[in-house]
C-alpha cells in the first residue's frame, strides 16, 4: 500500500513539473506531416493508420512493453498489465490533445526512457533487493502509461489540427495506437513464449534486463541532451 502511494505521489509530481513550456516537433515523417496539416474534417482510417504506425515503429513504447511482459507467464496477467498501460496512455493522449496541454516532448520522452530503466531494474528484483520494498507494479504501469500517452499527444500537437472532426480523428488515432500495440504484442509474445521453453531464457534474463536498462538510459541521455541543446 505504501509503495503504491509513493509511486502515485511521485508520478503526480513529475506530471506537474512537466506541464509547462512548449511542445517541440519531432517524430512524424514528412508525408504524414503534410497530411496532418492539410487534412480537413473526419479522416478515420488515415488517423487509425498513423496511430498504428506510430506504435509499431515506436521502439520506446515497445521496449517498455517488452519489459512489462517479460516475467508475466499467465495470459490473464498479460491482459491485466496491458490494459493498465492502455488506460494510462489513452487518458493522457485524449486529455493532452483535447485540453491542449503543452508539455515538452523531450522531457516526456526522457521519462518514457526512465520507464524502460525502471522496468529493467524492477525485473531484476532491484527494488526489493536495494530498498526492501517494490513499488506496486500495476500502479507503475498505469502511471508510466500516462507519460507514454503524453508522448503520443505531443506528436500530434505539433500540428494545428482542425477543430472540425478533431474528437473522431483523435479516437481513430487512439484506436490505431491500440491496434499497433496488439500487433506488436503478438510478435513479442510469440517470440518470448518460444524462447521461454529454452533453458537460455532464465540464463539470459539478467542480461536481457540489463540491456533493457541500458537502452532506457540511452533514450534518457538522448532526450535530455535534446532538451538541453535545442
Amino acid at each position, binding site marked *: 500500500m505504501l509503495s503504491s502511494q509513493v509511486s502515485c505521489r511521485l508520478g503526480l509530481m513529475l506530471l506537474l513539473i512537466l506541464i509547462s513550456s512548449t511542445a*517541440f*516537433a*519531432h*517524430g*512524424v*515523417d*514528412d508525408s*504524414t*506531416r*503534410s497530411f496532418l*496539416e*492539410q487534412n*480537413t*474534417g473526419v479522416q478515420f482510417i488515415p488517423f487509425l493508420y498513423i496511430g498504428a504506425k506510430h506504435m509499431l515503429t515506436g521502439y520506446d513504447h515497445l521496449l517498455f512493453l517488452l519489459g512489462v511482459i517479460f*516475467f508475466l507467464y499467465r495470459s490473464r496477467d498479460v491482459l491485466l498489465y496491458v490494459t493498465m498501460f492502455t488506460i494510462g496512455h489513452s487518458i493522457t493522449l485524449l486529455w493532452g490533445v483535447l485540453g491542449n496541454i503543452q508539455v515538452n516532448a523531450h522531457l516526456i520522452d526522457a521519462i518514457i526512457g526512465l520507464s524502460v*530503466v525502471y522496468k*529493467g*531494474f*524492477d*525485473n*531484476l*528484483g*532491484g527494488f*526489493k*533487493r*536495494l530498498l526492501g520494498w517494490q513499488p506496486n*507494479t500495476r500502479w507503475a504501469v498505469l502511471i508510466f502509461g500516462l507519460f507514454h500517452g503524453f508522448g503520443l499527444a505531443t506528436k500530434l500537437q*505539433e500540428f*494545428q489540427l*482542425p477543430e472540425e472532426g478533431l474528437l473522431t480523428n483523435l479516437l481513430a488515432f487512439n484506436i490505431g495506437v491500440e491496434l499497433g500495440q496488439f500487433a506488436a504484442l503478438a510478435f513479442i509474445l510469440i517470440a518470448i513464449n518460444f524462447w521461454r521453453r529454452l533453458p537460455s531464457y532464465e540464463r539470459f*534474463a*539478467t542480461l536481457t*534486463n*540489463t*540491456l533493457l*536498462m*541500458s*537502452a532506457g*538510459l*540511452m533514450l534518457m*541521455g*538522448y532526450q535530455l*541532451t*535534446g532538451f538541453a*541543446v*535545442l
Partner: protein
Amino acid sequence: MKYSVNLTTLIKASLAALVLAAVALLTLILPAEYNIDPTGIGQRLGLTVLAQSAEASPVDPESIPESTASQQVIEITVPANKGIEYKLQMEQYDKVTYEWMTDGGSLYFDLHGEPEGDTTGYFESYAIATLDTMKGSFAAPFNGSHGWYWKNASTKPVAIQLILNGQFQIIGIKP
C-alpha cells in the same frame, strides 16, 4: 514476480547498463544526433556528418547562385475546403518583403520555415492568423524553404495575390 538477482549481480548489472549507455551516447548517439562529440570518436567514424547536414551549413558564396532581388507578383488559388502551401527557397539571413490579399474571404494561414535537409518534421512559425490581407517582412533564420500555408475553410475557392520583394527563389506550391 519471484525472479530476483543477488546484490552483487544487481550492482554489476546496473553499472554495466550505465557504462554501456554512456559509451553509446558519447561515441555514437550524441555525435550523430546533435554533433556533440566529446571523445572525437564520432568524428572519426564519420557520424557527426549526420547532425551537420541537418544544421544550417556554412554558406559558400561562390557555390550558390545569387539570390534574386526583384519584385514578383504571384496569383494563387486555394480550392474550397483545402489548404495549400506556397514556399520560397531562402538562404540564412535572406530577407523578403511581402504583401498578400484575397479576393474575398479571410484565410487561416501559417507563415513558417523548414530547415534544409531536415527530416524530423521540424518547422518554425513566424505568423499565424486568419486574415484577408497581410503586409510584412521576415529574414530567414536558417537555410531552407519558407512560406505560407493557407487554409480555405469556405465552400468556394479563394484567389490570393502575393507580391514579393527580396532575396529568394520560388519553389511554388508544395504537393
